[in-house]
């Protein structure tokens, strides 16, 4: 009659994962097809920078935006359903954090593997050797934390609109640029491009960089929980 109930955090994360995995897979399939297409069919029309740095090195922004959008949707689309099915807000927050791990990890793995794949494609098609040759482990960690950060910032924007009125939501959206700028600055290691101008940033060891990003991510997660833990359930926001 009734099966043993899983922990509510796992119920939320499993259910969200089953809802979003198709979108994640679809996104990356399109992304990879476009990338392979560019490498196979346009190798002679690439700019010098693209020739030497590779296309993949500059492709990391799109998945960040994708995860930002997924994050924005999470609370307004899903929280009402879970709470009305007897899940606490705390467990919803837990499930959402848990979901962030496969979303960011899969994206980071694909992004990281893209570098050697791009080099193989170049070798096969006969293009120039790509000069940028990042450490895969280092790139993987950097991508993972970067994607995680965009996901939680998006989640904070969505939670802001859910918890408060639209005006407060707009203010939170604008304020959410701050952690993003900070994360990009920390990750840029030296100089950061912002609104067309280069801003100098002291070089810091990689491990410190990553710990700083993790710290920012943890703070944003805490802000999300603080916003949602007493949020009134709304019938429908989207």
């Amino acid at each position: 009659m009734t099966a043993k109930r899983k922990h509510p955090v796992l119920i939320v994360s499993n259910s969200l994962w089953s809802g979003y995995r198709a979108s994640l897979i679809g996104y990356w399939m399109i992304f990879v097809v476009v990338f392979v297409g560019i490498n196979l069919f346009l190798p002679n029309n690439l700019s010098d920078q693209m020739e030497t740095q590779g296309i993949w090195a500059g492709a990391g922004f799109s998945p960040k935006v994708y995860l930002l959008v997924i994050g924005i949707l999470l609370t307004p689309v899903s929280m009402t359903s879970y709470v009305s099915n007897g899940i606490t807000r705390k467990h919803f927050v837990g499930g959402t954090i848990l979901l962030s791990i496969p979303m960011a990890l899969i994206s980071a793995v694909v992004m990281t593997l893209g570098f050697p794949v791009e080099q193989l494609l170049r070798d096969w098609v006969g293009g120039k050797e790509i000069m940028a040759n990042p450490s895969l482990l280092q790139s993987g960690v950097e991508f993972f934390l970067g994607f995680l950060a965009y996901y939680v910032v998006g989640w904070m924007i969505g939670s802001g609109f859910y918890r408060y009125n639209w005006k407060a939501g707009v203010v939170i959206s604008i304020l959410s640029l701050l952690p993003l700028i900070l994360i990009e600055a920390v990750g840029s290691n030296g100089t950061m491009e912002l609104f067309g101008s280069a801003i100098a940033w002291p070089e810091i060891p990689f491990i410190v960089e990553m710990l700083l990003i993790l710290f920012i991510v943890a703070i944003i997660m805490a802000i999300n929980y603080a916003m949602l833990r007493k949020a009134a359930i709304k019938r429908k926001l989207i």
Partner: protein
Amino acid sequence: MTLAIDVRGAGVQYGRTVAVENVSFKLEGGKIYGLLGRNGSGKTSLLSLLASFREPTKGEVLIDGKIAFENAEIMSQVCFIQENGHMMDGYKVKDAIKLAASCWPKWDEQYANHLLDLYQLPLKKSISSLSRGMKSALGVTLGLASRAPVTIFDEAYLGMDAPTRYAFYDEVLRDYMEHPRTFILSTHLIEEVGNLFEEVLILDRGRLLLHEESDTLRQRGVSITGPAERVDDFVIGLQVLGEQRLGGTKSVTVYGELNQERVNRARTDGLDLGPVPLQDLFVHLTKKGGEGA
């Protein structure tokens, strides 16, 4: 399994608007309760407190002796259904059933399948494409199959056609008999569902006007019909809720139990005494301007 509900001085405020004010009551559980009130009386706000959809602005809500808000043990035992059960519109019916099955500890899959067949719900259709009546049927399916010890339906059967609504009332009664638990039904369709209620709570302008056993409440209303002059004479000193006149005949509804002496007098005066439908009592008690109460 029954859970007692204890609402102590609860209030809900939206900005400057007071939706629920200083409401206190105790429900021992294991009964079918009717929550009645006019539009804007605070029914949904009050039920939202029971379901932990919001925290009371004032006072507290205890279920099984524990503060209900954000209490995982309590929230997993209180199912609050409004229309489609708050499921995401992008979900298919089967997704909603799957989510509910994973969330409610006492979920009865066999019963859910029975209800899906009864209401002819298409599993592969998305919720957004369902008619309003179908959405309501889905909500009702989720609520009943959850077998939650406290199951609350807030106008969940709006949009259903009459045969479907009566099928729902039958299901509530049958399921209640087979699996005793607490049902709270909030409705405007009092005539249809009134016979199910064991206790009735009436809210009016955010305040609890009345909480009584429905049989006791029904006994408190009496309609007195007969020649106008005799009826007017008879009702002196009684709380008159309403009156109707047709020619020389008058029918007056009074609130309050008649003692044996009054009953005998009515017989002597040739007056007819009759019961008052719950809906009429409700209408009279909640008349605008406050004369009802």
